[in-house]
Structures are given as C-alpha cells and as structure tokens.
C-alpha cells in the first residue's frame, strides 16, 4: 500500500493555481525528498498533506485514509516552518498537551520518553521561552515524533536547525525509517536531503515533473535534476538570453 497517493491535486489561491495537477505516489518506508524552487508549491503540497489546507481539486490518501481525516491526522507527524511549541509552557507541559491532542495513551510517559530522546530531560520543567534556539528546535522535533507517526511531513527541516538539532533529527529520522515509517520532506538543499532520501520528486510550477528513486547522478551533481527535468520554459529563456 502507498503511504502517499496524491492524484492530480490542484490548489488555487484566488485565481492563481499554486498546484496544477500535482501527482505523487510514495511507497511505505520510503524517504522522499521533495525538491523545487521557492514558489514551486512545496509548502502548499505539504500543508495539504498535513490537513492544514484543502485541495481545490484532486484526491489524496495517506496510509489508505483520506488526507485531513481524523485517522490520517493521528498517524501523521508534521513539522512546519515554525517550531510549534508554546513559549510559556515548560517542555513537559508542551509535550503532555500535544500528547493529549494526538491521542497518545499515556501522555506523561510519552513526553518523558520523547524528552529523553532529544536530550532535554535535564531541563524538562524549564519554560520553552528560556531555552536556547537549538533546545527549542529539539523540543519541536520531540513534538513531531511524540506519537510515533507512521508518516512524517517535514517542511524545510534543515534550514533553521542548528548542528545539534540536525544531528538529533537525522538520528530520529533514521530510527523512524528503520521502524518502517515514511518520510516526506521538502527542501531546496539537495546535499543534506540526499543523505537520507531514497526517493526524489521535483516540483516545478505546481506540477511534479520528476518522481523516482534517488540515483547516483543526483548525488554526484545536485544541479543535474533541475537541468534535466526542470522547467523547460525557464531553460528556453536562459538559452535565449
């Protein structure tokens, strides 16, 4: 069964189509790097997958459930641009709250375990406000992994993280993959993404123009994918000028 099956998804903002019939299929257990330039529609697609936004047209199923349904929300973990934790709650309070919302059986226990995982046990009762940037980011990572999601949606996960948080995230992602979870992450930094990615999809102007396994060419030359499958129009333009 597919982890993500998005069929011809359109999303209009007013009259402007941010997604123009994007089709994406991701196997279970895969780690998909969703590439594309700024404005290509990566965030829009991820927000729709996370149930934060409804597609104008098109069908999306996640793990066999329709996107945005209660069941799919429960099995999906989402880490967006913002860290999504409350500054005025302690680390534990934050995670217990989200544990309750996510329907985790024993929120307190899950919270303690998650804090252990990201190395914040020592400061578990400190307010998130008092944390350093990196600690806050690790707390956010703990929040996204709290309910052991089967599908992880990460929007530009590496851009704002510090080194330690990146290390924590990569360990957790590798662990999740071993567990059989699926990961979809958007990024425009190909090098970092390629370390984990098993699959690659390229989003151009609201359409998936390439989707397939990661290959040696991509690893060797980050620009290769864009040049081969990227926007033909943009190529023409540069050729003209």
């Amino acid at each position, binding site marked *: 069964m597919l982890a993500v099956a998005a069929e011809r998804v359109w999303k*209009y*903002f*007013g*009259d*402007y189509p941010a997604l123009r019939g994007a089709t994406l299929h991701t196997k279970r257990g895969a780690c998909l790097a969703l590439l594309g330039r700024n*404005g290509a529609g990566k965030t829009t697609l991820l927000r729709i997958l996370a149930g934060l936004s409804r597609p*104008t047209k098109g069908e999306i199923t996640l793990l066999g459930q329709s996107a945005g349904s209660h069941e799919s929300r429960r099995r999906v973990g989402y880490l967006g641009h913002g860290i999504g934790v409350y500054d005025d709650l302690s680390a534990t309070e934050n995670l217990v709250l989200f544990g309750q919302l996510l329907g985790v059986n024993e929120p307190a226990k899950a919270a303690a375990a998650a804090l252990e995982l990201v190395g914040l046990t020592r400061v578990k009762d400190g307010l998130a406000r008092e944390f350093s940037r990196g600690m806050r980011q690790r707390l956010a990572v703990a929040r996204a992994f709290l309910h052991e999601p089967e599908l992880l949606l990460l929007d530009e996960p590496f851009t704002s993280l510090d080194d330690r948080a990146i290390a924590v995230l990569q360990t957790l992602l590798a662990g999740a993959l071993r567990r059989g979870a699926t990961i979809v992450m958007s990024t425009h930094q190909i090098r970092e993404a390629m370390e984990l990615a098993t699959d690659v999809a390229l989003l151009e*102007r609201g359409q998936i123009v390439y989707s397939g396994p990661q290959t040696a060419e991509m690893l060797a030359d980050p620009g290769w994918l864009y040049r081969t499958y990227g926007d033909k129009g943009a190529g023409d333009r540069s050729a003209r000028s």
Partner: protein
Amino acid sequence: MREKATYVLGILGTLLMLLNLKTIFLDLPNEAAQGAIFRIIFIHVPAAINADVFLFVALVASIMFLAKKNFFWDSLAVSATEVGVMLLCVNLATGSIWGRNIWGVWWAWDLRMTSQLMCLLLYLGYLLVRPAIGEPTQRATMSAFISIFAFADIPLVAMAIRLPNVRTQHPGPVLETGTLDALYRPPFIIGIFVLLLIGAALTLVRLHQETTRREIDSLRRELHAI
C-alpha cells in the same frame, strides 16, 4: 452578454423610475395626515425592502461560496452587500429627513430605523475587514463567515429593541400597518421594482470589477513566481 444585461437593467430601471416619479409628484394627491412629505415612502420603504433583499442575496452567496468554493459566489456576495449597504444608507437618510419633518428631530430611535442602523453597522464591519485580508481564498472564506454571522443577528436585533424595558420611541403606526390606500399602491410597488432593477445593474457592474480584481491578483502572483 453581461454588459448588455447591465445596460438593459439600468435603462429599464431609470425609465421606470422617471415614469414613477411623474406619478408620485404630479398625479397623486397629498395624503390627509402628512401632506406632501408622505411621498417619501415611495423611496424610503423600497430602499429598506431592497436592502434586505440584497443582503439576503449576499447571505445565500456566502453560503454557496463555503459549499462550492467558487469565487463567483464570493464576488456576488460582496457586490450585493455593497449595494445593500448603499440602499440602507438611502433608507436611513430619507427616513431621517422624514422624521425631522414629522417629529422635529433628525433621529428619534424609531424601531425600524434603529434596527436598520444596527444592520448598517454590522455590514460596515464586513466591508471594512474584507480589504484587510490579503489572500483571496482566505478573504472570501472569512467574508462568508462574517456575512452569515451578520445576517443571523438581524432577527435578534429586531427582538432586542422590542424588549419591554427598552426605551425606543414608538411613533405609532404612521407607516407601520402596511395598509396603503389602493391609490398609492401601484407607484409603491413600481418603486420597489425600480430600486431592484437599479440595484441589480449596479451589482452586475460591481461583480465584473471583482472578477477583474481577481485576475489582477493572479497576474501579480504570476509575476511574483517568475
């Protein structure tokens, strides 16, 4: 097609209005109790009725937008709301002038004028907030939500100002009973149609502008994406 419809409605409305004005001012006799000023009901009451009609259209369009997510409905909602608010203003201005003549004050907290004023305030909020929302889908969704909330308030306002302990002036059924002498009925009904036609024409014009505006917005995004 749309342009033709606008012109037809507009011209028809204006012609009918001129005919009706002739009847009202030249053919009809003065009413016994109020004298000449009673003629104001031929614009005052049709404005009120049509304001409610257009605001109701806006409500239906708002619900349709939420159900269908088709921007036509959003455009219709805002167009009809603007025309409705304009008609409310006509209603309030003429009513106020009539009140000054009959009661000697510009504003007497008369029941129906009060509820129309509150209705105006409700929809002014709608029109003020709308342009502050940048993203078109969000703007349309929020506007629809506000429109539904506003319309739901209208019956409550009517009930609230009729509470037994609320001191609004009850000026007696000057125009309250609705029994209009048969002589005055035709120009009254035509008056309703006149404003309906003119309002519909203006709504169509506004509708077209809203469509163009969306086109502009999508062009802006297009440029941004390049």
